[in-house]
Protein backbone atom coordinates (compact mmCIF):
# COMPACT_ATOMS: atom_id res chain seq x y z
CA UNK A 1 0.00 0.00 0.00
CA UNK A 2 2.79 2.39 0.94
CA UNK A 3 4.48 1.72 -2.40
CA UNK A 4 1.29 2.62 -4.26
CA UNK A 5 0.89 5.83 -2.28
CA UNK A 6 4.53 6.81 -2.79
CA UNK A 7 4.21 6.25 -6.52
CA UNK A 8 1.20 8.55 -6.61
CA UNK A 9 3.07 11.18 -4.64
CA UNK A 10 6.37 10.98 -6.51
CA UNK A 11 5.06 10.37 -10.01
CA UNK A 12 1.80 12.31 -10.18
CA UNK A 13 2.38 13.06 -13.86
CA UNK A 14 2.15 9.38 -14.67
CA UNK A 15 -1.47 9.42 -13.50
CA UNK A 16 -2.21 12.70 -15.26
CA UNK A 17 -3.87 11.28 -18.39
CA UNK A 18 -6.26 9.00 -16.52
CA UNK A 19 -7.06 11.75 -13.99
CA UNK A 20 -7.77 14.23 -16.80
CA UNK A 21 -10.03 11.74 -18.57
CA UNK A 22 -11.89 11.01 -15.34
CA UNK A 23 -12.28 14.74 -14.60
CA UNK A 24 -13.96 15.22 -17.98
CA UNK A 25 -16.18 12.21 -17.41
CA UNK A 26 -17.07 13.49 -13.94
CA UNK A 27 -18.07 16.86 -15.37
CA UNK A 28 -20.16 15.07 -17.99
CA UNK A 29 -21.82 12.84 -15.39
CA UNK A 30 -22.60 15.73 -13.05
CA UNK A 31 -23.93 17.84 -15.91
CA UNK A 32 -26.13 15.05 -17.19
CA UNK A 33 -27.30 14.28 -13.68
CA UNK A 34 -27.90 17.96 -13.00
CA UNK A 35 -29.94 18.35 -16.15
CA UNK A 36 -31.96 15.22 -15.39
CA UNK A 37 -32.63 16.41 -11.86
CA UNK A 38 -33.41 19.91 -13.06
CA UNK A 39 -35.84 18.63 -15.65
CA UNK A 40 -37.42 16.09 -13.31
CA UNK A 41 -37.77 18.43 -10.37
CA UNK A 42 -38.91 21.30 -12.58
CA UNK A 43 -41.52 19.15 -14.27
CA UNK A 44 -42.95 17.28 -11.33
CA UNK A 45 -42.83 19.57 -8.30
CA UNK A 46 -46.58 20.27 -8.32
CA UNK A 47 -47.36 16.55 -8.11
CA UNK A 48 -44.53 15.55 -5.78
CA UNK A 49 -45.70 18.17 -3.30
CA UNK A 50 -49.22 16.72 -3.08
CA UNK A 51 -50.24 15.33 0.30
CA UNK A 52 -52.13 12.45 -1.24
CA UNK A 53 -51.81 8.74 -1.86
CA UNK A 54 -53.39 8.75 -5.32
CA UNK A 55 -54.28 11.01 -8.24
CA UNK A 56 -57.60 10.35 -9.98
CA UNK A 57 -57.88 11.07 -13.73
CA UNK A 58 -60.82 10.63 -16.03
CA UNK A 59 -60.56 7.29 -17.80
CA UNK A 60 -60.19 8.83 -21.26
CA UNK A 61 -57.36 11.21 -20.24
CA UNK A 62 -54.49 8.75 -20.79
CA UNK A 63 -53.00 9.83 -17.47
CA UNK A 64 -52.76 13.45 -18.65
CA UNK A 65 -53.89 16.13 -16.24
CA UNK A 66 -54.47 18.61 -19.05
CA UNK A 67 -56.82 16.20 -20.86
CA UNK A 68 -58.62 15.02 -17.74
CA UNK A 69 -61.95 16.33 -16.49
CA UNK A 70 -63.88 15.14 -13.45
CA UNK A 71 -67.21 16.35 -12.15
CA UNK A 72 -68.88 16.60 -8.77
CA UNK A 73 -70.68 13.25 -9.21
CA UNK A 74 -67.39 11.45 -9.49
CA UNK A 75 -66.08 13.31 -6.51
CA UNK A 76 -69.07 12.21 -4.46
CA UNK A 77 -68.46 8.60 -5.51
CA UNK A 78 -64.87 8.83 -4.35
CA UNK A 79 -65.74 10.48 -1.07
CA UNK A 80 -68.16 7.67 -0.27
CA UNK A 81 -65.49 4.99 -0.49
CA UNK A 82 -64.59 3.72 2.96
CA UNK A 83 -60.91 4.39 3.70
CA UNK A 84 -60.79 7.59 1.64
CA UNK A 85 -59.98 10.23 4.22
CA UNK A 86 -59.67 13.32 2.03
CA UNK A 87 -60.37 14.41 -1.53
CA UNK A 88 -59.20 17.64 -3.14
CA UNK A 89 -59.62 19.07 -6.61
CA UNK A 90 -56.68 20.09 -8.79
CA UNK A 91 -56.65 21.97 -12.08
CA UNK A 92 -53.65 23.12 -14.07
CA UNK A 93 -53.50 25.56 -17.00
CA UNK A 94 -50.29 26.31 -18.84
CA UNK A 95 -50.38 29.95 -19.80
CA UNK A 96 -48.14 32.82 -20.76
CA UNK A 97 -47.98 35.55 -18.13
CA UNK A 98 -47.32 39.18 -18.84
CA UNK A 99 -44.96 40.54 -16.19
CA UNK A 100 -44.99 44.30 -15.50
CA UNK A 101 -41.88 45.88 -17.02
CA UNK A 102 -40.90 42.73 -18.95
CA UNK A 103 -41.15 42.25 -22.68
CA UNK A 104 -41.16 38.46 -22.75
CA UNK A 105 -43.95 36.29 -21.41
CA UNK A 106 -43.25 34.18 -18.35
CA UNK A 107 -44.08 30.46 -18.69
CA UNK A 108 -46.61 29.86 -15.95
CA UNK A 109 -48.68 26.95 -14.67
CA UNK A 110 -51.81 28.28 -12.98
CA UNK A 111 -52.84 25.65 -10.46
CA UNK A 112 -56.20 25.70 -8.75
CA UNK A 113 -56.18 23.65 -5.54
CA UNK A 114 -58.24 22.80 -2.52
CA UNK A 115 -55.85 20.82 -0.30
CA UNK A 116 -52.57 22.70 0.24
CA UNK A 117 -49.60 20.61 -0.89
CA UNK A 118 -46.35 20.50 1.08
CA UNK A 119 -44.77 23.95 1.16
CA UNK A 120 -47.84 25.75 -0.19
CA UNK A 121 -49.93 27.85 2.20
CA UNK A 122 -53.71 27.72 2.45
CA UNK A 123 -55.77 28.63 -0.60
CA UNK A 124 -55.32 32.38 -1.24
CA UNK A 125 -58.22 34.80 -1.75
CA UNK A 126 -59.70 34.97 -5.27
CA UNK A 127 -57.34 36.74 -7.68
CA UNK A 128 -54.23 36.11 -5.56
CA UNK A 129 -51.50 33.50 -6.07
CA UNK A 130 -48.56 31.88 -4.36
CA UNK A 131 -45.84 31.97 -6.99
CA UNK A 132 -42.93 29.57 -7.37
CA UNK A 133 -39.50 31.19 -7.14
CA UNK A 134 -38.72 29.91 -10.63
CA UNK A 135 -40.75 32.88 -11.87
CA UNK A 136 -38.22 35.28 -10.34
CA UNK A 137 -36.00 34.56 -13.35
CA UNK A 138 -38.76 36.10 -15.51
CA UNK A 139 -38.79 39.28 -13.43
CA UNK A 140 -41.79 38.38 -11.29
CA UNK A 141 -41.89 40.11 -7.89
CA UNK A 142 -44.20 39.82 -4.87
CA UNK A 143 -47.04 42.34 -5.05
CA UNK A 144 -47.09 42.49 -8.85
CA UNK A 145 -50.19 41.72 -10.85
CA UNK A 146 -49.53 39.31 -13.71
CA UNK A 147 -51.87 39.08 -16.69
CA UNK A 148 -52.48 35.53 -17.80
CA UNK A 149 -53.47 34.09 -21.13
CA UNK A 150 -55.03 35.74 -24.17
CA UNK A 151 -57.70 37.43 -22.06
CA UNK A 152 -55.09 38.77 -19.66
CA UNK A 153 -56.74 37.49 -16.51
CA UNK A 154 -55.14 39.41 -13.60
CA UNK A 155 -53.47 37.49 -10.77
CA UNK A 156 -51.63 39.21 -7.95
CA UNK A 157 -48.51 37.57 -6.52
CA UNK A 158 -48.98 37.18 -2.78
CA UNK A 159 -45.75 35.38 -1.83
CA UNK A 160 -43.24 32.69 -2.79
CA UNK A 161 -43.26 28.92 -2.70
CA UNK A 162 -40.52 26.56 -3.86
CA UNK A 163 -40.15 23.33 -5.85
CA UNK A 164 -43.79 23.24 -6.93
CA UNK A 165 -43.48 23.68 -10.71
CA UNK A 166 -45.20 21.73 -13.43
CA UNK A 167 -43.61 20.86 -16.79
CA UNK A 168 -40.87 23.45 -16.21
CA UNK A 169 -43.50 26.22 -15.97
CA UNK A 170 -43.39 28.40 -12.86
CA UNK A 171 -46.44 27.60 -10.77
CA UNK A 172 -49.05 30.07 -9.56
CA UNK A 173 -51.15 28.45 -6.84
CA UNK A 174 -54.61 29.98 -6.87
CA UNK A 175 -58.14 29.40 -5.61
CA UNK A 176 -60.21 26.98 -7.75
CA UNK A 177 -62.45 29.74 -9.09
CA UNK A 178 -59.45 31.84 -10.08
CA UNK A 179 -58.04 28.85 -11.96
CA UNK A 180 -61.38 28.23 -13.71
CA UNK A 181 -61.52 31.86 -14.77
CA UNK A 182 -58.04 31.66 -16.30
CA UNK A 183 -58.69 28.24 -17.85
CA UNK A 184 -62.09 29.11 -19.29
CA UNK A 185 -60.74 32.38 -20.68
CA UNK A 186 -58.10 30.53 -22.66
CA UNK A 187 -60.36 27.58 -23.58
CA UNK A 188 -63.86 29.07 -23.93
CA UNK A 189 -64.83 26.07 -26.06
CA UNK A 190 -64.55 23.69 -23.10
CA UNK A 191 -65.31 25.58 -19.92
CA UNK A 192 -65.08 24.03 -16.48
CA UNK A 193 -68.20 24.44 -14.37
CA UNK A 194 -68.12 25.16 -10.65
CA UNK A 195 -66.99 22.07 -8.73
CA UNK A 196 -65.34 20.53 -11.78
CA UNK A 197 -61.60 19.85 -11.77
CA UNK A 198 -59.13 18.11 -14.03
CA UNK A 199 -58.08 15.60 -11.37
CA UNK A 200 -58.75 14.78 -7.77
CA UNK A 201 -56.10 13.98 -5.23
CA UNK A 202 -57.26 11.51 -2.61
CA UNK A 203 -55.72 10.25 0.57
CA UNK A 204 -56.26 7.23 2.74
CA UNK A 205 -54.35 4.71 4.82
CA UNK A 206 -52.82 1.49 3.47
CA UNK A 207 -51.42 0.53 0.10
CA UNK A 208 -51.98 3.35 -2.43
CA UNK A 209 -52.26 0.78 -5.25
CA UNK A 210 -55.18 -0.90 -3.50
CA UNK A 211 -56.83 2.46 -2.90
CA UNK A 212 -56.44 3.34 -6.59
CA UNK A 213 -58.16 0.10 -7.66
CA UNK A 214 -60.99 0.65 -5.20
CA UNK A 215 -61.63 4.15 -6.55
CA UNK A 216 -61.74 2.97 -10.15
CA UNK A 217 -64.12 0.14 -9.17
CA UNK A 218 -66.37 2.58 -7.29
CA UNK A 219 -66.61 4.93 -10.26
CA UNK A 220 -67.42 2.07 -12.63
CA UNK A 221 -64.05 2.59 -14.32
CA UNK A 222 -64.97 6.11 -15.30
CA UNK A 223 -61.67 7.06 -13.67
CA UNK A 224 -58.05 5.96 -14.05
CA UNK A 225 -56.34 6.32 -10.70
CA UNK A 226 -52.59 6.33 -10.27
CA UNK A 227 -50.52 6.26 -7.12
CA UNK A 228 -48.77 9.57 -6.53
CA UNK A 229 -45.40 8.11 -7.58
CA UNK A 230 -46.89 6.73 -10.79
CA UNK A 231 -48.62 10.06 -11.46
CA UNK A 232 -45.28 11.87 -11.10
CA UNK A 233 -43.70 9.59 -13.70
CA UNK A 234 -46.80 9.95 -15.92
CA UNK A 235 -46.13 13.67 -16.32
CA UNK A 236 -45.51 14.28 -20.03
CA UNK A 237 -41.96 13.38 -21.05
CA UNK A 238 -40.79 12.57 -17.53
CA UNK A 239 -40.39 8.83 -17.97
CA UNK A 240 -38.75 9.29 -21.38
CA UNK A 241 -36.37 11.93 -20.03
CA UNK A 242 -35.41 9.71 -17.13
CA UNK A 243 -34.76 6.65 -19.25
CA UNK A 244 -32.82 8.61 -21.87
CA UNK A 245 -30.63 10.43 -19.38
CA UNK A 246 -30.13 7.34 -17.25
CA UNK A 247 -29.08 5.46 -20.38
CA UNK A 248 -26.47 8.10 -21.22
CA UNK A 249 -25.31 8.22 -17.60
CA UNK A 250 -25.01 4.43 -17.52
CA UNK A 251 -22.93 4.40 -20.71
CA UNK A 252 -20.71 7.15 -19.26
CA UNK A 253 -20.09 5.05 -16.16
CA UNK A 254 -19.10 2.15 -18.43
CA UNK A 255 -16.63 4.51 -20.14
CA UNK A 256 -15.23 5.44 -16.70
CA UNK A 257 -14.65 1.76 -16.01
CA UNK A 258 -13.06 1.21 -19.42
CA UNK A 259 -10.73 4.21 -19.05
CA UNK A 260 -9.55 3.00 -15.65
CA UNK A 261 -9.26 -0.60 -16.84
CA UNK A 262 -7.23 0.34 -19.90
CA UNK A 263 -4.93 2.68 -18.00
CA UNK A 264 -4.15 0.27 -15.20
CA UNK A 265 -3.84 -2.67 -17.59
CA UNK A 266 -1.16 -0.73 -19.47
CA UNK A 267 0.47 0.36 -16.24
CA UNK A 268 0.51 -3.23 -14.99
CA UNK A 269 2.06 -4.36 -18.25
CA UNK A 270 4.76 -1.73 -17.86
CA UNK A 271 5.31 -2.67 -14.23
CA UNK A 272 5.49 -6.42 -14.89
CA UNK A 273 9.28 -6.66 -14.35
CA UNK A 274 9.14 -4.79 -11.05
CA UNK A 275 6.10 -6.81 -9.96
CA UNK A 276 8.14 -9.94 -10.77
CA UNK A 277 10.90 -8.72 -8.48
CA UNK A 278 8.48 -7.75 -5.71
CA UNK A 279 6.85 -11.15 -5.91
CA UNK A 280 10.27 -12.81 -5.83
CA UNK A 281 11.17 -11.01 -2.62
CA UNK A 282 7.98 -12.03 -0.90
CA UNK A 283 5.07 -9.82 -1.81
CA UNK A 284 1.73 -11.40 -2.51
CA UNK A 285 -0.55 -10.88 -5.51
CA UNK A 286 -3.16 -9.59 -3.05
CA UNK A 287 -0.86 -6.78 -1.88
CA UNK A 288 0.08 -5.76 -5.40
CA UNK A 289 -3.56 -5.80 -6.45
CA UNK A 290 -4.57 -3.80 -3.39
CA UNK A 291 -2.02 -1.18 -4.43
CA UNK A 292 -3.51 -0.93 -7.92
CA UNK A 293 -7.01 -0.72 -6.48
CA UNK A 294 -5.96 1.96 -4.02
CA UNK A 295 -4.41 4.00 -6.82
CA UNK A 296 -7.54 3.64 -8.96
CA UNK A 297 -9.74 4.80 -6.08
CA UNK A 298 -7.50 7.76 -5.19
CA UNK A 299 -7.30 8.87 -8.82
CA UNK A 300 -11.09 8.55 -9.12
CA UNK A 301 -11.62 10.54 -5.92
CA UNK A 302 -9.25 13.31 -7.00
CA UNK A 303 -10.90 13.44 -10.43
CA UNK A 304 -14.35 13.64 -8.83
CA UNK A 305 -13.33 16.49 -6.53
CA UNK A 306 -11.74 18.50 -9.34
CA UNK A 307 -14.56 17.65 -11.76
CA UNK A 308 -17.12 18.62 -9.13
CA UNK A 309 -15.51 22.04 -8.64
CA UNK A 310 -15.35 22.59 -12.40
CA UNK A 311 -19.02 21.65 -12.73
CA UNK A 312 -20.00 24.02 -9.92
CA UNK A 313 -18.08 26.80 -11.65
CA UNK A 314 -19.58 26.09 -15.05
CA UNK A 315 -23.16 25.81 -13.81
CA UNK A 316 -22.88 29.12 -11.99
CA UNK A 317 -22.16 30.68 -15.37
CA UNK A 318 -25.27 29.22 -17.01
CA UNK A 319 -28.45 31.30 -17.35
CA UNK A 320 -30.97 30.60 -14.57
CA UNK A 321 -33.55 29.41 -17.10
CA UNK A 322 -31.51 26.33 -18.01
CA UNK A 323 -33.01 23.60 -15.85
CA UNK A 324 -29.84 22.27 -14.27
CA UNK A 325 -29.87 21.43 -10.61
CA UNK A 326 -26.92 20.05 -8.64
CA UNK A 327 -28.24 18.15 -5.66
CA UNK A 328 -26.25 16.42 -2.93
CA UNK A 329 -27.80 13.01 -3.48
CA UNK A 330 -26.81 13.12 -7.17
CA UNK A 331 -23.24 14.05 -6.25
CA UNK A 332 -23.10 11.17 -3.77
CA UNK A 333 -24.46 8.61 -6.22
CA UNK A 334 -22.16 9.89 -8.96
CA UNK A 335 -19.17 9.66 -6.62
CA UNK A 336 -20.21 6.18 -5.54
CA UNK A 337 -20.70 5.13 -9.17
CA UNK A 338 -17.30 6.49 -10.19
CA UNK A 339 -15.61 4.73 -7.28
CA UNK A 340 -17.38 1.47 -8.07
CA UNK A 341 -16.61 1.55 -11.79
CA UNK A 342 -13.01 2.62 -11.09
CA UNK A 343 -12.66 -0.32 -8.70
CA UNK A 344 -14.11 -2.69 -11.28
CA UNK A 345 -11.85 -1.18 -13.95
CA UNK A 346 -8.83 -1.55 -11.69
CA UNK A 347 -9.86 -5.12 -10.90
CA UNK A 348 -9.33 -6.04 -14.55
CA UNK A 349 -5.60 -5.92 -13.78
CA UNK A 350 -5.94 -8.65 -11.14
CA UNK A 351 -5.66 -11.47 -13.65
CA UNK A 352 -2.57 -9.95 -15.21
CA UNK A 353 -0.92 -9.37 -11.83
CA UNK A 354 -1.77 -12.90 -10.71
CA UNK A 355 -0.15 -14.29 -13.84
CA UNK A 356 3.18 -12.54 -13.30
CA UNK A 357 5.60 -15.30 -12.39
CA UNK A 358 8.21 -14.28 -9.81
CA UNK A 359 10.71 -16.51 -11.56
CA UNK A 360 10.82 -13.94 -14.38
CA UNK A 361 12.80 -11.72 -12.01
CA UNK A 362 15.73 -14.07 -12.11
CA UNK A 363 17.61 -14.43 -15.38
CA UNK A 364 16.26 -15.92 -18.58
CA UNK A 365 18.29 -19.06 -18.91
CA UNK A 366 17.26 -22.52 -17.85
Amino acid sequence: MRIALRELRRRPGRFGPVTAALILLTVLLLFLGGLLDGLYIGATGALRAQRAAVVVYSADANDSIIRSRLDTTTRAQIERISGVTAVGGLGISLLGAKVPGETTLADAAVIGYQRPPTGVPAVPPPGDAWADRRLEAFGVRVGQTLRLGPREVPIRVRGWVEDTNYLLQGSLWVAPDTWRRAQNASRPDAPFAAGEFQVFVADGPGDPGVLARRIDRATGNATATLTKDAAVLASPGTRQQKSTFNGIIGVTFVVVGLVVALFFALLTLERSPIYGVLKAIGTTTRRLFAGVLLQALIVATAAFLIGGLITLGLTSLLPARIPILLVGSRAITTFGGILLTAAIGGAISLRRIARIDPVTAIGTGT
Partner: protein
Amino acid sequence: MTALQLDHVSKVYRSGDDDIVALDDANLTVAADEMIGLIGPSGSGKTTLISIAGGLLTPTEGSVLVGGENITGYNAKELTRFRGEQVGFVFQTVNLVPFLTARENLLVVGELSGGRAGRKQATTRADQLLDELGLGHRHDNLPRQLSGGERQRVAVGRALMNEPKLVLFDEPTSALDTHLGEQVMDLIRSEVKGRGTAAVIVTHDARVTTYCDRVVTIIDGRLAETAAASA
Protein backbone atom coordinates in the same frame (compact mmCIF):
# COMPACT_ATOMS: atom_id res chain seq x y z
CA MET B 1 24.11 -25.92 10.36
CA THR B 2 23.26 -26.35 6.69
CA ALA B 3 21.86 -23.34 4.87
CA LEU B 4 20.86 -25.18 1.72
CA GLN B 5 20.45 -28.83 0.96
CA LEU B 6 19.30 -30.15 -2.41
CA ASP B 7 18.74 -33.91 -2.49
CA HIS B 8 18.33 -35.58 -5.88
CA VAL B 9 16.56 -32.55 -7.24
CA SER B 10 15.30 -32.66 -10.80
CA LYS B 11 13.29 -30.19 -12.81
CA VAL B 12 11.64 -31.25 -16.01
CA TYR B 13 9.75 -28.90 -18.32
CA ARG B 14 7.16 -30.19 -20.70
CA SER B 15 7.43 -28.75 -24.21
CA GLY B 16 4.87 -30.29 -26.55
CA ASP B 17 5.59 -34.01 -26.56
CA ASP B 18 9.12 -33.52 -25.29
CA ASP B 19 10.49 -33.36 -21.78
CA ILE B 20 13.27 -30.88 -21.21
CA VAL B 21 15.42 -31.75 -18.23
CA ALA B 22 16.66 -28.47 -16.79
CA LEU B 23 18.06 -29.99 -13.62
CA ASP B 24 19.05 -33.61 -13.35
CA ASP B 25 19.43 -35.33 -10.01
CA ALA B 26 21.24 -32.42 -8.40
CA ASN B 27 22.74 -32.77 -4.96
CA LEU B 28 24.17 -29.74 -3.26
CA THR B 29 24.86 -28.77 0.31
CA VAL B 30 25.82 -25.25 1.32
CA ALA B 31 26.99 -24.62 4.86
CA ALA B 32 25.59 -21.79 6.95
CA ASP B 33 28.39 -19.32 6.26
CA GLU B 34 29.57 -20.75 2.97
CA MET B 35 29.80 -18.77 -0.23
CA ILE B 36 29.70 -20.81 -3.40
CA GLY B 37 30.01 -19.87 -7.03
CA LEU B 38 27.79 -21.56 -9.58
CA ILE B 39 29.16 -21.48 -13.09
CA GLY B 40 28.11 -23.03 -16.33
CA PRO B 41 27.23 -22.19 -19.91
CA SER B 42 23.95 -20.56 -20.90
CA GLY B 43 21.06 -22.97 -20.62
CA SER B 44 22.95 -25.29 -18.30
CA GLY B 45 20.42 -25.01 -15.44
CA LYS B 46 21.99 -22.34 -13.21
CA THR B 47 18.88 -20.20 -13.06
CA THR B 48 16.67 -23.22 -12.47
CA LEU B 49 18.86 -24.32 -9.60
CA ILE B 50 18.83 -21.01 -7.76
CA SER B 51 15.13 -20.55 -8.54
CA ILE B 52 14.41 -23.85 -6.83
CA ALA B 53 16.75 -23.01 -3.96
CA GLY B 54 14.99 -19.67 -3.52
CA GLY B 55 11.46 -21.05 -3.67
CA LEU B 56 10.66 -19.47 -7.01
CA LEU B 57 10.23 -22.85 -8.65
CA THR B 58 9.24 -26.22 -7.25
CA PRO B 59 11.26 -29.30 -8.19
CA THR B 60 9.79 -32.14 -10.20
CA GLU B 61 11.63 -34.57 -7.97
CA GLY B 62 13.84 -34.46 -4.90
CA SER B 63 13.77 -32.37 -1.77
CA VAL B 64 14.87 -28.83 -0.91
CA LEU B 65 15.80 -27.70 2.59
CA VAL B 66 16.68 -24.09 3.34
CA GLY B 67 17.89 -23.31 6.84
CA GLY B 68 16.42 -26.63 7.94
CA GLU B 69 12.99 -25.81 6.48
CA ASN B 70 11.78 -28.35 3.96
CA ILE B 71 10.09 -26.34 1.23
CA THR B 72 9.62 -29.19 -1.23
CA GLY B 73 5.86 -29.50 -0.93
CA TYR B 74 5.09 -25.83 -0.32
CA ASN B 75 2.26 -24.24 -2.25
CA ALA B 76 2.54 -20.81 -3.88
CA LYS B 77 1.36 -18.98 -0.78
CA GLU B 78 3.79 -20.79 1.48
CA LEU B 79 6.62 -20.17 -0.94
CA THR B 80 5.81 -16.45 -1.00
CA ARG B 81 5.98 -16.32 2.79
CA PHE B 82 9.20 -18.36 2.72
CA ARG B 83 10.86 -16.03 0.21
CA GLY B 84 9.92 -13.00 2.26
CA GLU B 85 11.42 -14.46 5.43
CA GLN B 86 14.21 -16.88 4.61
CA VAL B 87 16.01 -15.88 1.42
CA GLY B 88 17.49 -12.79 -0.15
CA PHE B 89 17.84 -12.17 -3.86
CA VAL B 90 20.18 -9.95 -5.83
CA PHE B 91 19.16 -9.92 -9.46
CA GLN B 92 21.18 -9.52 -12.63
CA THR B 93 19.52 -6.27 -13.55
CA VAL B 94 19.31 -4.31 -10.34
CA ASN B 95 15.52 -3.91 -10.34
CA LEU B 96 15.10 -1.46 -7.53
CA VAL B 97 11.69 0.16 -7.34
CA PRO B 98 12.43 3.36 -9.27
CA PHE B 99 10.23 5.74 -7.31
CA LEU B 100 11.43 4.63 -3.88
CA THR B 101 14.51 5.98 -2.14
CA ALA B 102 17.40 3.70 -1.21
CA ARG B 103 16.02 3.38 2.32
CA GLU B 104 12.48 2.69 1.12
CA ASN B 105 13.75 0.02 -1.27
CA LEU B 106 15.09 -1.81 1.76
CA LEU B 107 11.94 -1.22 3.77
CA VAL B 108 9.87 -2.77 0.98
CA VAL B 109 11.02 -6.19 2.19
CA GLY B 110 9.58 -5.69 5.64
CA GLU B 111 6.41 -4.04 4.38
CA LEU B 112 5.68 -6.60 1.69
CA SER B 113 6.27 -9.62 3.82
CA GLY B 114 3.87 -8.33 6.42
CA GLY B 115 6.17 -6.11 8.43
CA ARG B 116 7.09 -8.49 11.20
CA ALA B 117 9.47 -6.01 12.66
CA GLY B 118 8.08 -2.72 13.69
CA ARG B 119 8.38 0.09 11.22
CA LYS B 120 10.79 2.01 13.40
CA GLN B 121 12.95 -1.04 13.92
CA ALA B 122 12.96 -1.74 10.19
CA THR B 123 13.98 1.84 9.42
CA THR B 124 16.85 1.62 11.89
CA ARG B 125 17.98 -1.63 10.33
CA ALA B 126 17.72 -0.23 6.79
CA ASP B 127 19.79 2.82 7.76
CA GLN B 128 22.36 0.63 9.48
CA LEU B 129 22.65 -1.62 6.42
CA LEU B 130 23.02 1.32 4.07
CA ASP B 131 25.71 2.78 6.31
CA GLU B 132 27.57 -0.53 6.29
CA LEU B 133 27.29 -0.65 2.52
CA GLY B 134 28.90 2.77 2.25
CA LEU B 135 25.65 4.50 1.33
CA GLY B 136 25.27 6.54 4.50
CA HIS B 137 24.80 9.72 2.49
CA ARG B 138 22.45 8.13 -0.03
CA HIS B 139 19.51 7.05 2.16
CA ASP B 140 17.07 9.44 0.57
CA ASN B 141 18.28 9.22 -3.01
CA LEU B 142 16.16 7.65 -5.71
CA PRO B 143 17.76 4.87 -7.82
CA ARG B 144 18.23 7.24 -10.79
CA GLN B 145 20.35 9.46 -8.55
CA LEU B 146 22.71 6.56 -7.76
CA SER B 147 25.59 5.10 -9.79
CA GLY B 148 25.44 1.50 -11.06
CA GLY B 149 27.62 0.29 -8.20
CA GLU B 150 25.58 2.15 -5.61
CA ARG B 151 22.37 0.67 -6.99
CA GLN B 152 23.82 -2.82 -6.76
CA ARG B 153 24.85 -2.11 -3.17
CA VAL B 154 21.28 -1.07 -2.37
CA ALA B 155 20.13 -4.34 -3.93
CA VAL B 156 22.55 -6.20 -1.65
CA GLY B 157 21.13 -4.31 1.30
CA ARG B 158 17.62 -5.26 0.25
CA ALA B 159 18.65 -8.92 0.04
CA LEU B 160 20.05 -8.77 3.58
CA MET B 161 17.19 -6.80 5.06
CA ASN B 162 15.19 -9.80 6.28
CA GLU B 163 18.28 -11.45 7.81
CA PRO B 164 18.03 -14.44 5.47
CA LYS B 165 19.66 -17.82 5.92
CA LEU B 166 20.58 -17.83 2.24
CA VAL B 167 21.26 -15.10 -0.32
CA LEU B 168 21.08 -15.90 -4.01
CA PHE B 169 23.01 -13.70 -6.41
CA ASP B 170 22.21 -13.84 -10.12
CA GLU B 171 25.16 -12.40 -12.07
CA PRO B 172 25.63 -9.57 -9.55
CA THR B 173 28.48 -7.92 -11.46
CA SER B 174 27.35 -8.38 -15.04
CA ALA B 175 26.13 -4.80 -15.35
CA LEU B 176 29.23 -3.29 -13.70
CA ASP B 177 32.70 -2.48 -14.98
CA THR B 178 35.67 -4.41 -13.64
CA HIS B 179 36.54 -1.95 -10.91
CA LEU B 180 32.97 -1.60 -9.64
CA GLY B 181 32.48 -5.35 -9.96
CA GLU B 182 35.44 -5.96 -7.67
CA GLN B 183 34.19 -3.39 -5.19
CA VAL B 184 30.76 -4.99 -5.11
CA MET B 185 32.20 -8.51 -4.73
CA ASP B 186 34.43 -7.33 -1.87
CA LEU B 187 31.38 -5.90 -0.23
CA ILE B 188 29.26 -9.00 -0.83
CA ARG B 189 31.91 -11.23 0.67
CA SER B 190 32.42 -9.06 3.71
CA GLU B 191 28.67 -8.69 4.34
CA VAL B 192 27.89 -12.36 3.81
CA LYS B 193 30.82 -13.58 5.86
CA GLY B 194 30.30 -10.98 8.54
CA ARG B 195 26.74 -12.17 9.08
CA GLY B 196 27.37 -15.88 8.76
CA THR B 197 24.95 -16.03 5.87
CA ALA B 198 25.24 -18.56 3.08
CA ALA B 199 25.41 -17.35 -0.51
CA VAL B 200 25.11 -18.88 -3.93
CA ILE B 201 26.48 -16.70 -6.71
CA VAL B 202 25.59 -17.48 -10.29
CA THR B 203 28.21 -16.04 -12.61
CA HIS B 204 29.87 -16.23 -15.98
CA ASP B 205 32.75 -14.15 -14.68
CA ALA B 206 35.72 -16.27 -13.62
CA ARG B 207 37.03 -13.42 -11.44
CA VAL B 208 33.92 -13.60 -9.29
CA THR B 209 34.69 -17.19 -8.39
CA THR B 210 37.87 -16.06 -6.64
CA TYR B 211 35.67 -14.55 -3.92
CA CYS B 212 33.89 -17.87 -3.31
CA ASP B 213 34.75 -20.65 -0.89
CA ARG B 214 33.80 -23.23 -3.43
CA VAL B 215 32.81 -23.34 -7.08
CA VAL B 216 30.19 -25.68 -8.49
CA THR B 217 29.95 -26.25 -12.21
CA ILE B 218 26.69 -27.16 -13.84
CA ILE B 219 26.42 -28.56 -17.34
CA ASP B 220 23.23 -29.83 -18.96
CA GLY B 221 21.46 -29.73 -15.64
CA ARG B 222 24.00 -31.85 -13.82
CA LEU B 223 26.26 -30.60 -11.09
CA ALA B 224 29.27 -32.03 -12.73
CA GLU B 225 32.21 -30.72 -10.89
CA THR B 226 33.15 -29.06 -7.68
CA ALA B 227 36.34 -27.11 -7.49
CA ALA B 228 37.99 -25.29 -4.68
CA ALA B 229 38.26 -21.56 -5.08
CA SER B 230 40.95 -19.26 -3.83
CA ALA B 231 39.05 -16.82 -1.68
